[in-house]
């Protein structure tokens, strides 16, 4: 196994003499004081772990360009000082670990990660949906191995990591119309920020409107003629992950539109849903009502997200 020096470490791994006394649980008066041993001691026993870890971005920073005291500590930056562990290697209480068998609470495990990963989106971690549900960083991440190409995830891809707790979304992305997730053109974290956000669904923007129009910027407007539900959020009409309907719609037009529209118009348009041509087997062959076939209402109301035509009040143009 490579040593820090063979891996190209340019700065010494912190020796135990440089470190301050360390306690895993500082509130516990019986907690023994622990000492840092250094990376070389760890890899003496953990050769396979080191081989995997050395290929991670953590190792490359810690071993090649550590900028803080913690980073210089190598393995012990996360696992804490190993002196007590060395005395009784099978006693899990003597080392910080991040798996199911760990003695630590989830908050304690996460606190270790947040020692370094403090800022950015994690400012909003406290009180977020994942934090409230006691999700551990190591539920999604495995910093010991480069399993994903980026992000040190537990699974090879973001979506597989998310699906292990959100299986319903896997089924949704397989529906007739869907975002191109399995085609590799986006992933869950293009829209969601799992580390914390100003929104409950952990969106990367402050609203669904802002989020969706960040890619679909032609729908952003502002238009001179606005459609109210568009301005408040796209999910009134669209299912964001996948749908049985075309265009991620929550249900078929004209029913989709008639959930809100009950006003009278020329020839009772649009409220008169139940015309013979609209019935299930009405005049299907001869006189199908354009509201029920094809794209339904939006064949005429083409600019349903908003119109910039001086005569576009009804989103026809």
């Amino acid at each position, binding site marked *: 196994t490579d040593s820090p020096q063979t891996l190209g470490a340019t700065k010494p791994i912190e020796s135990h003499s440089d470190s301050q006394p360390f306690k895993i649980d500082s509130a516990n008066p019986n907690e023994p004081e622990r000492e840092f041993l250094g990376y070389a001691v760890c890899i003496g026993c953990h050769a396979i772990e080191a081989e995997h870890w050395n290929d991670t971005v953590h190792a490359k920073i810690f071993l090649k360009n550590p900028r803080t005291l913690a980073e210089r500590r190598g393995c012990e930056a996360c696992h804490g000082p190993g002196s007590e562990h060395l005395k009784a290697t099978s006693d899990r209480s003597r080392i910080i670990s991040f798996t199911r068998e760990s003695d630590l609470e989830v908050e304690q495990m996460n606190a270790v990660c947040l020692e370094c990963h403090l800022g950015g989106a994690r400012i909003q971690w406290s009180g977020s949906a994942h934090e409230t549900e006691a999700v551990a960083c190591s539920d999604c991440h495995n910093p010991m191995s480069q399993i994903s190409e980026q992000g040190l995830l537990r699974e090879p891809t*973001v979506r597989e990591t998310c699906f292990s707790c959100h299986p319903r979304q896997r089924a949704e992305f397989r529906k007739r119309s869907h975002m191109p997730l399995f085609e590799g053109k986006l992933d869950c974290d293009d829209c969601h920020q799992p580390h914390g956000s100003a929104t409950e669904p952990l969106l990367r923007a402050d609203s669904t409107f802002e989020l969706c129009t960040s890619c679909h910027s032609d729908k952003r407007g502002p238009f001179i003629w606005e459609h109210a539900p568009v301005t408040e959020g796209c999910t009134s009409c669209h299912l964001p992950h996948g749908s049985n309907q075309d265009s991620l719609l929550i249900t078929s037009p004209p029913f989709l539109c008639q959930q809100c529209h009950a006003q009278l118009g020329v020839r009772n348009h649009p409220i008169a849903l139940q015309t013979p041509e609209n019935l299930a087997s009405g005049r299907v062959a001869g006189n199908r009502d354009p509201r029920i076939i094809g794209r339904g209402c939006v064949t005429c109301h083409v600019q349903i997200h908003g119109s910039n*035509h001086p005569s576009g009040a009804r989103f026809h143009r």
Partner: protein
Amino acid sequence: PSIAAATSTGESDLSGSAIESTRDVDPRGLTTWRTTRHRSPSGILYPYPRKPLPWSGNEFQIRALVDFGYVVNSGEADEASFRKYADRSDGLLVRRFLLEGQKRDSANYFEIGGGSVGRSDQFFHGELGRYGLFSIRGSFDSLEHLSMDDARVLFAGVGSELLTLPAPLVPGLNSAIDVNAALATTGQTRLSQKRKQTEFELRLGIHPRLTFIADYRLRKRSGERPFGGTLGITFSSNIVGSVAETIAPEESNTHEFSAALQYADKKLQANLRYHSSIYDNQNTSLTWENPFLARALGGPLDVQGVQRGRAALAPDNQLHQITMDLGLELPLRSRFTTHVAWTRMRQNQRLLPATINPVLTDFDVLSRNKADAQVDQLLVQSKIRLRPFSAVSLQFGFRYSMRDNDTNYRSGNPTSGQFGYVTVDGYPTVDAYRREDEEKRFTNRRGAVPFSMRRYRLNGSIDWRFAKRSRMGMSFQHDTSQRENRARREVRDERVRVHASTALIPYTQLRLPYSYLRRSGSNYSASRDARYYDAPGPGLRQRTGGPTRSLRNFRQFDLGSQELHDVALRANWLIGPRVDLSLAVRYEIRDFRASYGVTDSRVAEISLDTSIQISPRLTGYGFASFDWRDRRMASINGATNLGRDSTDFRAGSARFPLSNRWTWDSDSRGITLGAGLTAQPHEGLELRADYRFQRSHEVVDTDFDRTGGALTLLSVAADAPSRFPTLRQVDHVVDASVAYHWTDAITTRVFYRFQYSTINDFQQQGLQPVVNHNLYLGHVDDDFAVHVIGATVRLRY
């Protein structure tokens, strides 16, 4: 995908996930000492790690990989549903290539990679930097959204702003027979939009506590997409009006730029970010020639009608946003966080004339020539978390958001005092501009409705860790939304949520949340935007007339009162040292407390997942999901021409007689099943097999008074069925591959996919390009069966 966000590599699932094409499972696992499998704190098995790719060289180290081969399809591989976002065509396939380099004695590195080279879904990425200090990243990602491959296009000029009719058709003077004859000479056209996204990002660690991030992204869209156009209403009549499914050109660029500073120490964390997005559309309008005869109501049938129509396409627009986040550690293990965002969205596109119809010369003057549309938004959100005891936390927060729309477009001619707008280009005498002294019964809108709103939220929660890895909590949230110009001025939401999670039960992790929401608010007004019909604008006189003609008892589901119960269960069972089983269940019931509009909805979802890790050489998985959604609504057909000027719009009135009442019930169900196995029966040989089944269907039932009532407009058989044909889609997908690792450097793989898909959509089934005076592109999602066979070689250095 955005390099700032996603970690996906851009590769489709044609033959396994991306990572698997670059690295192999390490049979030793991840540990020197343990024989049991590792699990995450929630009890989920970690997968076996991949072997790190070896480095070559001494001081300057590199490693490289290329995975390439050939792929062929048989069957209906051109079907749009099969190729919607991924290029699955026959030919050479470069699945992945990767070149990485690093200086052994320093933290400098670079990386170049990509995949699907030369195909419409190709992607490339590169990165250069010094670990822990800075990185410069770039990426290019391409995507083709294939809308349809079977469009029957009548028009010439597809992809431009002008769609013209082929000879001998004359704009505005053709019968359906003429159009059908012209269509008979056309073939099938492929309509797709290409998206190409290029992105650069710089991350610079100015100081261990201070990071600067800048990002630029250019998203280019080109191609064409199905659009529409109307020159009059064609339902209830097959002689008046003209509706055409047209094709809109797509040629736009979106430039996005952001710059952020992130500061973090143990006491204080702060983000400051500026973001802008500028959308530039190369096409401002779409003009199409009228394929049918669209004439004035009551006018002679044989006179040439309106010759063309025109729609405005999406205007250029800009967004500018400044956000700030702050996190502050307080005494007694307390924490304060806040988020502030200010956003301005603006567009000032030059407006098109009110109509392209040359007959309507009175409407040449607009109230203004440019849109001058602007929306400002502000969000302030803060919360404080207190920890009076280590096991108890309290949180209090508030959120204020505001959307202020300064767009006040008035539709009218200030020089003549006319108001309203030209409803459709083809109807010069109906619902068009009107003078104040003209007929009052048509309620022409005079002004755009600027939707503005304010929302206030107060929330509090308590969380208690009652045992090891076990918590329970309760939260309360009160929201008040105040909207201008919507049916309900004030909407109040009260939400209570309780949740528990525990690992106390042996071999089990449980999470159980329940939410209750009650929505109430101010009186509901059916004539919420009456002032935009009736109020005078600059240069326009006051108009008298009736209010908006809506069913007064109708409730819009996003504003109306409602009660919601939402309960979920999430359980992980560690049923063996190498086996996981998880169950996710959710049930939601929503009562809208409305007689008309959406009345209620229910959602049920059940998912079961298992993961089996017998050994690094034999792993498997399985999943099953079922979802059910039921949504019901009721409405009343308005009586035609009866009491037209009546102001009584209640259910049961002459305008909305109860005999015209109808209901609608949508019942949607989906099942997804999947299983897979990866095995290495001999050293170097790897077998993979996956199967997935997905079935979704939706049944729409309607009910009405069969004695006449709702159907008095036109005759109908009293026994007409009330259930529409089931909307159904069924997918079977089999993926299999055999790989042989000849050496660490050379691997060959043969893969096979079979996909069989059937679909039945009553909105498409039997759809002909011409139905009366409606012209459709005639697209139908067809059933398909496709075999894909490919062989690749992976070389590593």
